[in-house]
C-alpha cells in the first residue's frame, strides 16, 4: 500500500466488476430537510453496491443560497466533490507509478456569466518525487476516470418528481455546451488538500469540509464521498427553491431526496463504461403532499431555470485543467480523444 491506496484491492475490484456488471452498480442517495432559517441538513442514505449495502450516517449542512457563512452552499459542495474526485484519481495513478507526492492540492473554480452560464476549471498542485511525465499521466487519469470531472463535463438529464396527491414528473434537458470565453461576473473557488488514500480536507470561502470514500471503495469511512457532496448540492438547492424561507417549529416541512448511480467499471476498471454520475433523480416531498396545487412543481421549474448548481451538473462544460509541479506550471496537452463524448450510453426513450 502506497499513499494509503490499496492497489491490489483496486485491481481485485476491477477484475470482479469486469466479470459481473451487476456488482459494478453503485446507487447513492441523500435526503435534505430544512434546519435553521436559510439552511438545511442533508443526510446520506445507505448506498447499494452491487449485491451489498454500504451504510454510513453522515450529515452535510448546506446553505440554500450562494455565499457561505459557516456551512457550504450548493456550488461549494460541487467544488468539494470535484476536488475530492480529482485528488482520488491523481493519487491512485501516482501510486500505481510508485510515486509518493509530498503535496497534492486541487483548486477547483467555477465562474458564472451574467446569464447564469458557467465555466469550470481546476488546478492540480503537486510537490515531491513526481516527474513531469508522471504528473501529466495523473492529470490524464483524472480526466479519463474522474467521476466528478465527467459528470460536470458531460450533459446530464436531470429528472424530478413532485410527490403530491398526483405525482408530477418534470425533466430538465441539458443546454448547449458552454463557451469558454464567457465574461465572468461571479467566481467561486475551493481548496482541496489530499490527506491520505481517498481522504481530503477542503476549504471553500472559509468553510471547512472533508470527503472520503466508504471502505468498500478503499476509503476509511471518515466523511461523505465526493458523489454524496454532488447529490447534496442538488438536494439542498432544490429544497431552497421549494421550502419557505423559515418554517415555523413543529410545522411539517418539505424535504428533497436526490439519488444517482455510478457504473464502477467506468472509474475503477479499464473497461469502456460511463464514468460520471448517472440517472440523477430529485424527488420533492412538499410540506403538504395532499395539496394538488402548482406551487411545488413551479418551484422545481424555477430551480431548473435558475439553480446554479443544477446548471453546472446538467449542462456540459469544457473543463480547463492546469498543472503546477513543485511550484512550476507544467503544460498539459489538451485531451485529443478523451472519452468526454463517447462514454455515455445512448439516451433511451422512457
Amino acid at each position, binding site marked *: 500500500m502506497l499513499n494509503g491506496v490499496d492497489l491490489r484491492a483496486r485491481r*481485485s475490484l476491477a477484475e470482479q466488476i469486469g466479470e459481473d456488471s451487476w456488482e459494478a452498480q453503485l446507487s447513492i442517495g441523500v435526503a435534505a430537510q430544512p434546519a435553521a432559517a436559510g439552511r438545511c441538513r442533508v443526510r446520506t442514505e445507505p448506498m447499494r453496491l452491487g449485491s451489498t*449495502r454500504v451504510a454510513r450516517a453522515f450529515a452535510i449542512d448546506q446553505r440554500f443560497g450562494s455565499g457561505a457563512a459557516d456551512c457550504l452552499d450548493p456550488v461549494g459542495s460541487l467544488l468539494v466533490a470535484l476536488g475530492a474526485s480529482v485528488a482520488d484519481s491523481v493519487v491512485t495513478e501516482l501510486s500505481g507509478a510508485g510515486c509518493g507526492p509530498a503535496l497534492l492540492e486541487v483548486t477547483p473554480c467555477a465562474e458564472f456569466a451574467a446569464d447564469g452560464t458557467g465555466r469550470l476549471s481546476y488546478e492540480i498542485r503537486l510537490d515531491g518525487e513526481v516527474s513531469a511525465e508522471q504528473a501529466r499521466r495523473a492529470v490524464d487519469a483524472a480526466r479519463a476516470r474522474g467521476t466528478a470531472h465527467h459528470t460536470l463535463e458531460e450533459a446530464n438529464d436531470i429528472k424530478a418528481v413532485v410527490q403530491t396527491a398526483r405525482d408530477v414528473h418534470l425533466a430538465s434537458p441539458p443546454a448547449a455546451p458552454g463557451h469558454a470565453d464567457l465574461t465572468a461576473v461571479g467566481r467561486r473557488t475551493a481548496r482541496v488538500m489530499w490527506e491520505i488514500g481517498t481522504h481530503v480536507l477542503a476549504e471553500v470561502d472559509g468553510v471547512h469540509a472533508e470527503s472520503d470514500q466508504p*471502505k468498500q471503495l478503499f476509503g476509511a469511512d471518515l466523511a461523505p464521498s465526493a458523489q454524496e457532496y454532488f447529490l447534496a448540492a442538488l438536494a439542498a438547492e432544490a429544497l431552497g427553491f421549494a421550502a419557505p424561507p423559515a418554517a415555523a417549529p413543529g410545522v411539517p416541512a418539505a424535504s428533497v431526496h436526490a439519488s444517482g448511480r455510478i457504473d464502477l467499471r467506468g472509474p475503477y476498471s479499464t473497461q469502456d463504461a460511463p464514468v460520471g454520475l448517472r440517472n440523477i433523480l430529485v424527488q420533492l416531498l412538499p410540506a403538504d403532499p395532499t395539496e394538488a396545487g402548482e406551487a411545488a412543481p413551479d418551484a422545481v421549474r424555477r430551480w431548473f431555470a435558475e439553480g446554479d448548481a443544477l446548471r453546472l451538473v446538467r449542462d456540459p462544460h469544457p473543463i480547463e485543467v492546469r498543472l503546477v509541479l513543485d511550484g512550476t506550471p507544467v503544460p498539459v496537452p489538451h485531451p485529443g480523444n478523451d472519452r468526454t463524448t463517447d462514454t455515455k450510453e445512448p439516451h433511451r426513450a422512457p
Partner: protein
Amino acid sequence: MRHFAPTTAAATAPHDPARRVEDAFAALHGADTALLVPGVVAATTATLLALTNPGGHIIASDQTCDPLRGVLTQELAGHGRTVTFVDSTDADTVLTAVRPETQVVYTQSLSDPLMRPAPLNEIAVHAQMNDLLLVVDNTALSPAELRPLEAGAVIVIEDTAPYLDGWDDVGAALVTGIDRYLPRIAEQCARLGGEVPDWSAHLLERSLSTLELRLTAQRDGADRVAGTLRAHPAVRAVHRPSFDEAPWALETHQGFGGLLSFEVVPEIHDLTGILAACDGGPAPLGSTARLPARTSHAHLSERVRRELGITRQLVRLAVGVTGADALSGRLRQALDTALAQRDGGDERC
C-alpha cells in the same frame, strides 16, 4: 496477525503451518482462502466490523451468548453499529428485522445449547434479495456436517473447539468465505492484534485431517445417546435436531454433529450424578457435559434465561469419539438414581 495474501488450496503446500491450516480449512468449505485468528470472539468481531460501516445495522441470532453478545451490544455500538437480536431459526423473523441500513445477518448454523438449526437456505435467499451479507458461525456443526457457503453464506466462522481441534489443545478460530471480503477481515483482525503460534497451528493441522472420521463417530454416538435419553422418564426434553424435524436440512446437512442437550424433570434438583456420568474421564476425545445455567449463560438473570429456554435442569453434552454406548449406560443409571432420589435435598452442582 500475518499480512493477508490470497492463495489457493490447490497451490503447493506452504511451509508456514498457519497457512497450511488456512488452506486445509478453506478446502473443507470449498473456498479458496481462509484466516486463522486467535479466538472466535475476535474473529466474529473483526468480521462484523469489516463487513459493515459506521452507521450500519446487524441482525444477529438471539442465541448468541457472552462474551460475544457483550461485544455486539457494547463494543460494536461504540463503533457506530447497531444490532438487533432475532430468532434466526425463523427466516421470516429475520426478514422483519431488515432496515435500510442493515448490512449483515449473523447466525449460528446450530444454536448452542438448545440445538436449533437455522434454515440457512431460506435466510440466504432473504439476504440476497435484500443485498445483505450472511455470516454463519458453523462451530456446532463443522464443515463435515454443513458447508454454509454452499447454502448462500458469504463468510463462515468456526471456533476450533470442539470439532476442528479434537484434542482441545488450541484456542483459535478460522474464517473463510468469498475471496473479496477476506482482505478486509484480515485487515480488521490485524487491528485487533494477536497471532496463533506456529505450534498450535501445527496441532490444528494434524487434527483437521481426521475431522470427518471423528464427526461420523460423534454424530452416531450422539444419536444413540439421544435415543436413550428420550426413552427415560427422568428426561423431560431432548434437544437434538433430526431430519424428521428439519426435513429441509436434507439438502444441506450431512448430520447434526455430536452435540445435544437435555432437560431432566424439574423435580430433580441434584444434577451432580448426571454430570459425573457424562464425564468421559481424562482420556482425550471423551465426552464432556456442562450446565449452561451455571457456565455459558451464568451472566444472565433467571428471567432472561427462562425466556431463552435455558432452565437449571438443562444439561449440554458433547459426545466423544468413543464410548457412546458406555455413556448411555452410565447416564441411564444416573438418571434412575436421580429419579429414585427425586424427593431428596437441594440442587448441588
